[in-house]
């Protein structure tokens, strides 16, 4: 294990929360490319261990290996809320397999207004609302590390059939903007609603 890799592992362990690669580069006084290389190595090193490295966009995080799930669950004092309503499942599958979606896109696919479902998912920490990188007037609901953790995947691409599904739906959803105005309540609400 090289020095940078060691440091990254240490810092992530100490922090116990997700950190951005950018932040790590600043702290460790190296380039982001160097961070990326070291993270790749660290990930390989952790491949068959009790700790996994999770990745999401620019952030990385350490967690327990999914195969130990039952054991840790037993050790926890509090019960996990694993309940998912039909509305929640639909919404989560859209947010996951599209790797982030606007509320208009979600409403378009579901045929119903999803604002309450999205708020509840956000309260549970399973999705987060972020400003679109390409259009700062739009909000995108994205999967959180917490959601990836519940799904037991280190990164979004590890979801079953992700690649295949993601390709096929991207081709199919192009027309969403045209129809967004048809949706109930849509126009009454502003996307800033849940901002914090």
């Amino acid at each position: 294990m090289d020095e940078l890799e060691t440091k990254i592992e240490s810092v992530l362990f100490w922090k116990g929360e997700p950190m951005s690669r950018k932040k790590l580069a600043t702290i460790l006084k190296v380039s982001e490319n160097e961070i990326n290389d070291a993270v790749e190595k660290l990930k390989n090193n952790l491949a068959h261990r009790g700790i996994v490295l999770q990745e999401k966009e620019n952030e990385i995080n350490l967690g327990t290996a999914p195969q130990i799930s039952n054991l840790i669950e037993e050790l926890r004092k509090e019960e996990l809320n694993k309940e998912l309503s039909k509305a929640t499942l639909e919404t989560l599958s859209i947010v996951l397999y599209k790797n982030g979606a606007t509320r208009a896109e979600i409403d378009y696919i579901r045929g119903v207004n999803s604002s309450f479902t999205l708020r509840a998912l956000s309260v549970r920490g399973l999705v987060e609302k972020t400003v679109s990188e390409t259009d700062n007037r739009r909000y995108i609901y994205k999967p959180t590390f917490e959601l990836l953790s519940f799904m037991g995947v280190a990164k979004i691409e590890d979801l079953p059939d992700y690649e295949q599904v993601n390709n096929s739906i991207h081709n199919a959803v192009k027309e969403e903007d045209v129809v967004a105005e048809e949706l109930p309540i849509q126009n009454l609400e502003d996307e800033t609603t849940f901002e914090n």
Partner: protein
Amino acid sequence: METESSSQIYTVKTEAFEGPFGLLLDLVEKRKLFINDVSLASVTEDFLSHMNSLGDSGSLSPAEITSFIQVAATLILIKSKSLLPNLSLTDEEQGDIKNLEERLRLYRIFMGLGGSVKSSFGKEMIFAPLERKNEILVFLPDSRITKDTMMEFARNVLGGMPKKVFLPEVEVRKVINIEEVIDNLTQRIQSAITMSFAEFSGKKSGQHTRAEKVTVIVSFLAMLEMIRNGILNAVQNNHMEDIIIEKIPDSALVEEVAGEIN
């Protein structure tokens, strides 16, 4: 909370919340059909009568009624066109039909994915480490924590929460609009019947005799009348009910506070 197996057949009355696509897809799939204008036309009556009974039972919120009605309007178009091929549709109407098919296909994809999400969710999980204990006790405040800023922040976050309000007028307008759509379609169908009178007698009609075809159309018109009344009932039963919408938070206030401090 659903604990039922995925194989359980959709029942209209029991589900707390089921959007129009769930119902429509179920009707199409029960008949083992592909999603296209032909299959949608064949389930239109079923969809409308389910919708009516949902409306009568009062189990739909106004927002839900609206989303069902939107789909119903498009289905009625599809059905009318299938009964009367010479009925001319506007570009917008044709667009609505194409969109409904596409949305339904997408919805089916995500319904399936929802099943796969359900089967992995919370099974083999990754856990974040427990909160590390604070070894050293410190007190490190921030100059922005004052009595006034704390009050502003609290008021602001409360102001941003979803509020209960009355059914917005626009919802009612959309519902009224569907009535117009039905009236308008009824008229168009009636005049199309006259226009295509000759067509009915021709051999193009396949197995249907002229009399049969007229009967089908007349009963569809009766159905439309029933739906029209059903929608009115649903609206009358529901439109005074509260629904909840989001209030736009006055985020400018927080920024103002932050600005004052900086």
